[in-house]
């Protein structure tokens, strides 16, 4: 029985899981980023990423080179994120977290509406940043793209680590999120820090959208809806506070969901999504801070 086991199938499904997880990790990072800098989970993060992807598509179709469009979209998304915070979040800045979360839920519909109003709903595609040509090693196939998405997410983790740990700006961002009152007393411009947090998360969202769309081969306005749930599950699993947690959590989730889908008959292809939900629930019950998060300690 053991001899008949198809080891290359196991390896292949693991690689595919890592690749899917690598894509989810990009959005999970955006979620973590905004959580860290504003203390709120932004449910519109996926839709923002989708909108950025459409902007990138339009730029490419107006003749910009792929990388030109890539960086211009990141810049525009940053400004957009700041703008949204100023226009929509600021009026409820001091309201309870629940209020802000509900505002972000409202944003989901608004942004979706904008994307449907601005672009037709036909299926379209964005050029690949990385090669998708198959590379075969011992019967396991993968491509540069699979490695590329994971590499980008790890690169972002390093950048965020540097930002949060070694810069004054990072310190101010963290302080504003953790303790706005005291930060204000210490001269941190809390309100602008929140806007900056939104801008950074929107920029990260743009990266995630522009790399997810080619990884999924085509896209329309529904691009990020299915991804958001897995990304949230990955972020919660790794710890909402921790960028490296978001990446590791997403990769683990990708592998887990694939292997369960392949080898546990009754889960199969139909119950993959519920498995992700069960993981969110389980982590929140057993270890709310996730694998890499620290339990929040607050001096009173």
């Amino acid at each position: 029985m053991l001899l008949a086991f198809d080891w290359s199938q196991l390896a292949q499904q693991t690689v595919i899981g890592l690749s899917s997880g690598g894509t989810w990790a990009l959005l999970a990072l955006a979620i973590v980023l905004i959580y860290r800098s504003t203390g709120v989970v932004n449910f519109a993060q996926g839709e923002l990423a989708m909108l950025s992807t459409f902007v990138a598509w339009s730029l490419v179709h107006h003749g910009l080179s792929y990388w030109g469009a890539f960086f211009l979209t990141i810049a525009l998304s940053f400004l957009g994120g700041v703008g949204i915070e100023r226009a929509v979040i600021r009026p409820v800045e001091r309201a309870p977290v629940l209020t802000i979360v509900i505002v972000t839920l409202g944003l989901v519909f608004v942004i979706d509406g904008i994307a449907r109003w601005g672009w037709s709903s036909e299926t379209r595609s964005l050029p690949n940043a990385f090669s998708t040509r198959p590379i075969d090693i011992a019967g396991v196939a993968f491509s540069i793209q699979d490695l590329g998405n994971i590499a980008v997410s790890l690169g972002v983790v390093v950048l965020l680590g540097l930002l949060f740990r070694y810069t004054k700006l990072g310190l101010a961002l963290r302080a504003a999120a953790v303790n706005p009152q005291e930060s204000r007393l210490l001269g941190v411009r809390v309100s602008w820090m929140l806007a900056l947090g939104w801008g950074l998360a929107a920029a990260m969202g743009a990266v995630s959208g522009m790399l997810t769309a080619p990884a999924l081969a085509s896209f329309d306005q529904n691009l990020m809806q299915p991804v958001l749930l897995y990304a949230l599950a990955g972020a919660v699993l790794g710890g909402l506070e921790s960028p490296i947690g978001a990446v590791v959590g997403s990769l683990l989730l990708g592998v887990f969901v694939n292997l369960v889908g392949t080898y546990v008959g009754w889960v199969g292809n139909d119950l993959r999504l519920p498995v992700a939900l069960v993981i969110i629930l389980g982590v929140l019950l057993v270890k709310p801070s996730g694998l890499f998060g620290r339990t929040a300690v607050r001096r009173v």
Partner: protein
Amino acid sequence: MRAVYWAGALLCALALAAAASGAGTSTPGVSPTEIVIGGTIPLTGVASSFRSVGLGASYYFKYVNAHGGVNHRKIRYIIKDDQYDPALTMDKTRELVEQDHVFAIFNSLGTEHNLATRPYLNAVGVPQLFVGSGGRTFGADYKQYKWTIGYQPNYLAEGTIYGREVAKTTPKASIAVLYQNDDYGNDLLAGLKHGLGKRAKQIVSKQSYNADDPEVRSQIARLKSSKANTLMIFATPQFAIQAYRFAYQLGWKPKVYVNVVASASNVMNLAVLASSKKEVEGSISIVFLKDPSDPRWAKDPGIKLYRAIMKRYKDKGTNVNDVYNVYGMSVAHTFVQALKKAGKSPTRASIMNAATHLTIKNDPFLLPGVVVRTTPNDHFPLDQARLERWHNGHWASFGGLFRVR
């Protein structure tokens, strides 16, 4: 509260009675100058790429109206947006029947959506004409639902065509199937088995997917590991494109059959972009409409008419090369023919009678030779198609017409 409840019930009963008695004296939706029909279309929401099915039909009616209408009556086609949500389909269909007093429901889109409204429309005796779904039940269960009739070749028939083609041309094929885990995917799979007959055991692996999932790569890897040499893609465009991409990314080059839902030329071109020219080359699908982007039809009178109508009536942002517009015009053309047959003062009974006695040989939007044919015992207007092969960026049809039920 109680009073409100009873008042509501009374209103419903009145509305039902009004709708049911409509046929008696004057037919709802029919005036000396106008025929009012309506239907639901996902103008917005997840399935809004199918909006052209409704819009294409509306352009054709505008064209017919500009040329005098039918028996001096203009056709007013009310499209309600159901956002592809069956609950909304029900609400909007009720509105059409009870407030807009439509003559008939026409070209409403979606399998579950038409299933949701079918019992109601049959209870109040409103024709549910030319349903926009390949669900077999809309043609097959006419004894129970006599006010309902389908239109396009049904999914079971489509699957059967592929099964027969495989059995005929590659009898030793080992077959892998990717299918959506709902009625649509299951009908195609059942049809495939039916067409393969005793070769159905050559289906070595079948993997379903959930339309809410982001990707089908894991499924494609499992299908590949079954060592199949033939792949059936019974999936919507986005997942069909992924199937090509991931097969390519896994270094798998099976012979591909792709269902008509995903075989529009623009989708195939995206599949080429997502994988490689070689991966998509030689794919097989079925066809019953003239594809406006196919150079074969550039000088065809039907497609010339189509282009003229589009040029005159289309909304901004409508893609002229979208084959769903052609579908919409074809189903509208069929309705117009049925209406002509239904007499000078059409009733709901007479349009139903006309819709079940059709022989339309000259539909300009259908492939040459495809006939719209119905009888009281045959509620499948379109049951013919040809096979087509993707070659050098275009579909080319081959072989004769298949007729499958």
